[in-house]
């Protein structure tokens, strides 16, 4: 079941007690694309995200990332392979500075090994300097550079969303899963976030985005997957989805 897709999932099933949150759901993300995932509240979108990143193990079904089954991988190992997720409610590390939030995200740091802390202090300082420069660069691109030394907990809701996306980028990912990047964010900032996503996409980054804001989905996405009651309803280009009667029915109810 290997395709050219960077991420593909087939037949995913997950029940919580008697409730089938996700049943027989599939999704495919083409490399270099911005793929959307929409659906009414309770459709199982976030659960699907958790299944894709192995934060929750599926009862059935397979997920392939970069041509490799992720079944036996720990969530942090998936992140190390380049699939980074964000959370629906932005999760920043409150009592760490914005800069520390960014530095944490850098991968393969020599100084994250206990023994290396004592053995390679020079190399660690060098890496910290480089990571700091890169973090400032990314923070500048989302307009948070001035806040680098503030506590992340002091940021507003919208700024936290930006920090979370910036932090995901800091990992040098291949694929970023964004869970409602525009939720609770003011319209100006939404436009900004969209521009950033398009900019980074042009740099070669692939996105999978859950979003309720249809403008965002329609303007950004190459392809949209619709989920309703835990299962696939439709998929296609934004224009096709917009005119699909089944989708309209699911959203508007009859």
């Amino acid at each position: 079941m290997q395709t050219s897709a960077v991420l593909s999932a087939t037949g995913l099933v997950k029940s919580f007690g008697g409730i089938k949150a996700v049943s027989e759901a599939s999704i495919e993300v083409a490399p270099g694309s911005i793929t959307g995932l929409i659906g009414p509240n309770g459709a199982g979108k976030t659960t699907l995200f958790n299944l894709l990143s192995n934060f929750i193990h599926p009862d059935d079904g397979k997920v392939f990332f970069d041509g490799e089954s992720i079944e036996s991988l720990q969530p942090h190992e998936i992140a190390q392979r380049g699939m980074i997720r964000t959370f629906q409610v932005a999760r920043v590390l409150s009592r760490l500075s914005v800069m520390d939030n960014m530095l944490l995200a850098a991968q393969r740091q020599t100084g994250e090994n206990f023994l290396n802390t004592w053995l390679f202090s020079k190399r660690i300082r060098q890496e910290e300097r480089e990571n700091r420069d890169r973090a400032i660069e990314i923070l500048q691109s989302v307009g948070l550079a001035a806040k680098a030394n503030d506590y992340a907990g002091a940021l507003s809701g919208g700024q936290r969303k930006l920090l979370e996306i910036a932090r995901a980028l800091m990992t040098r990912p291949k694929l970023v899963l964004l869970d409602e990047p525009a939720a609770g964010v003011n319209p100006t900032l939404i436009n900004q976030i969209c521009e950033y996503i398009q900019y980074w996409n042009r740099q070669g980054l692939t996105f999978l985005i859950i979003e309720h804001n249809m403008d965002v989905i329609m303007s950004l996405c190459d392809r949209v997957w619709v989920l309703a009651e835990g299962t696939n309803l439709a998929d296609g280009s934004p224009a096709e989805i917009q005119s699909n009667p089944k989708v309209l029915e699911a959203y508007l109810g009859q």
Partner: protein
Amino acid sequence: MCSGLRYDFITTANLISMLDYLFSFDPGLIGYLVFLIVSVAIYGIFSLGLNLQWGYTGLINFGHVAFMTVGAYTTSLLTLSGTPIFIAVMIGAFLAAFLGLLMGFSTLRLREDYLSIVTIGVSELVRLFALNEDWLTKGAFGVQDFPLPLSQFRPTVGTRIGMIAIVAPIFGFIIWKLAQQLIQRFRKRQTVGAIFSVILILLTVRLLTVTAIALYDYSSNQARNGLLFLSLITVAIVYWALERLVHSPWGRVLKAIREDEQVAIALGKNVFLYKLQSLMLGGFIAGIAGAFFAWQLSTVYPTNFEPIVTFQAWIIMILGGAGNNAGTLLGAGIYWAYTAFTRDLERILPLGADQIGAMRIMLIGLILMVLMLFRPQGILGNKDELTLGK
């Protein structure tokens, strides 16, 4: 918790006056102050281990004394059978870390509250093992007459001055840090904080003179003065090493786990492994503290390792400010200053010894409550952090 402090000298010296503590050079008082300094150092080391686990990683360890028990028994028993002291301490510390490994493997994958339950259980288990397995630990009879470090040491005048020169910078560092605080407080016109800093600086100077006198007069009590020298150096090394660690990328991952484990996972950190390392390193440090505890007691009984010892470390850490190594050491200082000043309560209050003992515990509870009301982040904690949303 107080019985160990009841030095014979309580009947000989009049300690009601604080001035005695500050200016007297009575040998009995010097001896008692040295005891206090060593206690601060031992409890400081012990609490620094807990601070790494809870203050930096967010692990709820209610059985910290278990690591100390392992360290104390291993060191005393091994040296009794002829193992060199340094090697015995290292084996004790590694065994304590190994205990952390066992605790961690069984609980760290579970929800965090399980760790607190398991740790308190393990600490009682270890103590009861020490009480009942006479063949190994000598049970309630206690481990006695084990060698004490530097107790046969006969330093020349030059060596003694050298020892003073080695420990003096430690006090110098404390004074320098406090002076920084003082200047900062004065600039903000915080009178209470400034006065507090002045008192602490004066106390530190006093303790420096006491230490210098004790070390210069080394032969007055070799075991005691040797322990003073070693415990001061050890607490300085542990503090320096921890400061370096918590400011490294390694420490950053620990803090991230404390704040939100899910984020650390989502960013590719092996959270389980880091928690395990934190628990083990904290245990290792507490194991070293255990060796010093054994030397200070000079006889090791299972009753020395009741759960109250764990909670003394919690009090110390919360007083000074969790997640702050300097704060933890300050907490240890304040805790022992409190213990010293309240042990003469019976001269003022018409109460029996038992009632005084109970009252001292009540008082520290009251102090903690007042602290939680007015300075919930601890004395050196950062107030800004409390106002942050999750």
